[in-house]
């Protein structure tokens, strides 16, 4: 007896459909970015870079892009600067209210962004402060801190305390121990945490809509605004750029961190 379709074949087909379902819209955006027509649709009539060129002359988009980059980078830096010592404290030390504090820092992951967005706005209203870039930055740090914390904590649990104890018994003080032993072993996780923070900040829409001032629009918020007026092919081009960036940065980082970590157990 010969069976034409085995269970495995079905599973493979099913998997393929899921991938097609997920990636078709993304691929479509990237392809349409090269469509010279004003109203982007298939079939395409040739290939053109004109929307990219137009994009590069659009000063509001460029400003937004710059804002996003600066905001993302600062968010990454602050989140790791707070997250790494916090993770060290939670994993390596015992103190009162530790679990509560840990839950509190992780909480933004579980709270809907709309709620977070409104809450922070109300808070600065109560402080009688205007919306500002600083507010945006604080908001994004709150949003991304849980990811940094979780990633760094997970790695820290895996770094045996004995490494640090061995270093100290050999004469390294706590600071030297961190620099020579803990930090190098933790570096891939810190790096990954930074990247996560950057990426999340870079494409956050919901909360940013509440926090962004007129002068400090980010790219996703800008796109959202442009979509309200019309579907310009420029958006496709911008989308393509965003996709390339958000995919290639983690890939490059992953490659670098693997090279970085080579030789370590």
């Amino acid at each position, binding site marked *: 007896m010969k069976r034409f379709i085995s269970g495995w074949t079905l599973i493979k087909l099913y998997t393929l459909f899921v991938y097609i379902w997920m990636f078709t819209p993304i691929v479509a955006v990237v392809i349409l970015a090269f469509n010279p027509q004003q109203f982007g649709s298939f079939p395409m009539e040739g290939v053109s870079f004109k929307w990219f060129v137009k994009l590069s002359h659009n000063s509001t988009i460029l400003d937004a892009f710059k804002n996003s980059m600066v905001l993302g980078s600062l968010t990454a830096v602050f989140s790791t600067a707070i997250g790494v010592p916090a993770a060290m404290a939670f994993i390596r030390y015992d103190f009162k209210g530790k679990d509560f504090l840990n839950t509190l820092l992780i909480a933004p992951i579980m709270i809907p962004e709309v709620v977070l967005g409104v809450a922070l706005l109300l808070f600065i209203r109560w402080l009688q402060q205007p919306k500002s870039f600083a507010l945006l930055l604080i908001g994004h740090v709150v949003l991304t801190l849980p990811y940094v914390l979780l990633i760094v904590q997970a790695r820290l649990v895996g770094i045996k305390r004995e*490494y640090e104890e061995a270093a100290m018994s*050999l004469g*390294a003080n706590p600071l030297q121990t961190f620099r020579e032993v803990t930090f190098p072993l933790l570096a891939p996780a810190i790096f990954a945490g930074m990247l996560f923070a950057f990426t999340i900040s870079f494409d956050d829409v919901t909360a940013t809509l509440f926090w962004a001032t007129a002068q400090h629009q980010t790219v996703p918020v800008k796109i959202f605004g442009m979509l309200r007026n019309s579907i310009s092919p420029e958006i496709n081009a911008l989308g393509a750029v965003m996709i390339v960036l958000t995919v290639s940065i983690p890939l490059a980082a992953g490659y670098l961190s693997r090279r970085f970590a080579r*030789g*370590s157990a």
Partner: protein
Amino acid sequence: MAQDKNPAFVRFKNIEKRFGKVTAVAQMDLDIPEGALVTLLGPSGCGKTTLLRMLAGLETPTSGDIYIKDKRINDTPVHRRNLGMIFQNYALFPHKTIFDNVAFGLKYRGFSRDEMTTRVEKALETVRLPGVADRMPSQLSGGQQQRIALARAIVIEPDVLLMDEPLSALDENLREDMRREIDNLQQVLGVTTIFVTHDQREALSMSDKVVVMKDGIVQQEGDPEEVYNNSANHFVADFLGHSNFIDARVEAKENGYLTVSLAGGSSVRVNPAGPFAPGDRAEIVIRAQKMTLGFREDLSREPEMNYFTGKIVDRSYMGGEVSYFVELPTGKVLHVINFVKRSPYRRGDEVFIQVDPYHCRLLGD
């Protein structure tokens, strides 16, 4: 080494450590002589590792004082204590080469690069692993990694070498080699060493002094032969080797011999009378290896020996020797380990057990 060795090179004075409600180490006094290899032996949770970690500075005592070379070190942080520590899982820095691992402690002691290289090379030769300086720890086997850990600890010329179950992660065969190596190395270097283990064979074979611990309390300290042959209490006798315990009552005392009666009416002669007097309740301890098993015709009847009769209810063959479980008429089962002479006895055999009064020890309640 100085001629006069300090008998209390390391001194624990009234030391106590509590974790919440749990007392890990209870009001302990212990002296470690200079240049000696002392093992802390006991089951897990007996406080041996906690004691070692307090000496290392990795735990803070709840109360009491610790002295090294007559200097109180309670408030000296770990990195200023000058101790070499060896961990169960080696704890080599995975991101550093073998050279950098071994040189780690030298960096904080102000050595020049040349001097560091010389010392690291010498340390690697001492542990018989020259030529691995450029490798990463993950490229070495477990046994090799533990030797590198040893090199890393001795290269700083520590006052005391602390080893926390250093052999338990190794294979059985390797463990024996490594044990002898540590033993030799310790003798050559003459460094005061504290070795924590739950393995009685390790403790007995390499120590100058064994400290048997249970529930945070020292049960007995002494040289290996003393703790093995003259166990201070039931726990020590039970923990070291295979012991049989029989409840007994002292009946008479004559010419240094005690006659004690057992349940079921039989009596046994015990040689060193000790502090016991007729009427005392006690426990006889007999090591499984100190009894000889045989059929009636195999054993010469000697008047001063003790004899039991019984039936073999179980046995396990272990190559050179056989472990027998012999049930006495009273229902008591004795564990006897004998070398195989011709062919081992079988289950169901009716046998005699012969034991010298000298090998029957009495323990008080």
